[in-house]
């Protein structure tokens, strides 16, 4: 189970990479293993406002549908359009080509509170069974 050291994580099995006020968000290797083959992903619109902890999309696999959450407050500035034609990228490279959307983090927000370190996330996946 891959848990890259440079990322942060959420309880909802998403990862977040923050650079210069922009957060890139996807779902973890653990999540893709639980979901199975992703067949469709519904991403928020570019320009949409997102709220930390609120659902902003859906990830659909062969057998199930899961909500996609935003881990931060902000405005969606980019979505991964490759996923329209090839949602399987999420399974193949959950941390790479399978990234989902980018958010410009709202000014003044302290990002980090509530996010899990790689060690904490790894422990979460193990306790989830």
């Amino acid at each position, binding site marked *: 189970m891959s848990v890259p050291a440079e990322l942060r994580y959420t309880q909802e099995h998403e990862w977040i990479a923050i650079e210069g006020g922009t957060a890139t968000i996807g779902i973890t290797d653990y999540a893709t293993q639980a979901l199975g083959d992703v067949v469709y992903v519904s991403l928020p619109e570019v320009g949409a406002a997102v709220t930390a902890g609120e659902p902003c999309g859906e990830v659909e696999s062969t*057998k199930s549908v899961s909500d996609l959450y935003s881990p931060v407050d902000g405005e969606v500035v980019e979505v991964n359009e490759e996923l329209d034609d090839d949602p399987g990228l999420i399974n193949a490279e959950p941390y790479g080509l399978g990234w989902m959307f980018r958010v410009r983090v709202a000014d003044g927000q302290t990002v980090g509170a509530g996010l899990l370190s790689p060690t904490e996330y790894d422990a979460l996946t193990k306790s989830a069974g």
Partner: protein
Amino acid sequence: MTSTVRDTPLRMVHERLGATMTEFAGWRMPLRYGSETAEHNAVRTNAALFDLSHMGEIAVTGPGAGAALDYAVCGWPSQLSVGRARYTMLCAPDGGILDDLIIYRQAADRFLVVANAANTSVVLGELRDRCSGGGAAEGSSLETVVTDESAVTGLVSIQGPNGCGLLATVTDLPVAAMPYYAGAYGAVAGRAAWVARTGYTGEDGFEIFCAPADCEPIWDALTAAAASDPDGRGLPAAGLAARDTLRLEAGMPLYGNELGPDVTPYEAGLGRVVRLDKPGDFVGRSALAQRAAEGPRRTLIGLLGQSRRVPRHGYPVLSAAGDRVGVVTSGAPSPTLGKPIAMAYVEVDAGGPFGIDVRGKTEPAEVTGLPFYDRRK
């Protein structure tokens, strides 16, 4: 009270292969081993192995067994030749379906009834009530006896166009010549087995019934046969997720989705399993005859999704005007067709085009005939 989840005889194989396990009908079963899409495609283009040891196997034996089963189920098992099988249903007196079954005639006075894992105890109870005794004295050789053999029967299935060739290398049975829905006793990997040309995938395949301790040797022998073929493409394992998308593409019903106690075979488009032409009474006859005469008020249709969003069990089917006219019974992305497919019950007089309410948004769907996929075409 703790509920016990049972492992199949192939538990160690699934662990070794890194299967994602799931609980199903009180059994720990492999859901998938890697990509369920790859497993599905392997069955369509090559072959794959399934552990189906969770299924129920009930023996009905005695000189009157055939006649007893004629009374118990919708079909006409006493008409089966030895070595033949038939798909049939066990119905309630009101015509509702209690389970769908395959019945194999293994000998003149021995029938093997294969039931869904979730319904095995119901089927066993009903067969005991409906078949036992046959008017003969208990313990006499004329008695019809119903025996639950599930605990002493394992089931390995090889499905896909290359399965027959692989199986032929490890069995003495002339499997290539075996007709569809036939079966025979023989040896597989030197182990005693009942081998039948049946399956739930829409491809050619064989179901191998054996002693639980022989499941792993048989599985390993088939895998080894595939590995030793330099031109072959191996023999992957396939789990319950692939089993479901394969049977859906093949238009086969699933108990709990298309079939249930509130549905007769007629609604499901399976009136052919009801043998009103057999002599004598059977459980559900008058209700089923009435439904046959009146015609069902709901009908099972196939739907093709027009977007990627998958219609799923329980989603409403809407008319063009937006009225609810039915409900989705099963839905999944179809690896073979490359779009979502679904089966749904709709009111018999409802006309298309239909939409499906997928979590609040109506997705258009095209009506199509069943099956979605036919290997002969």
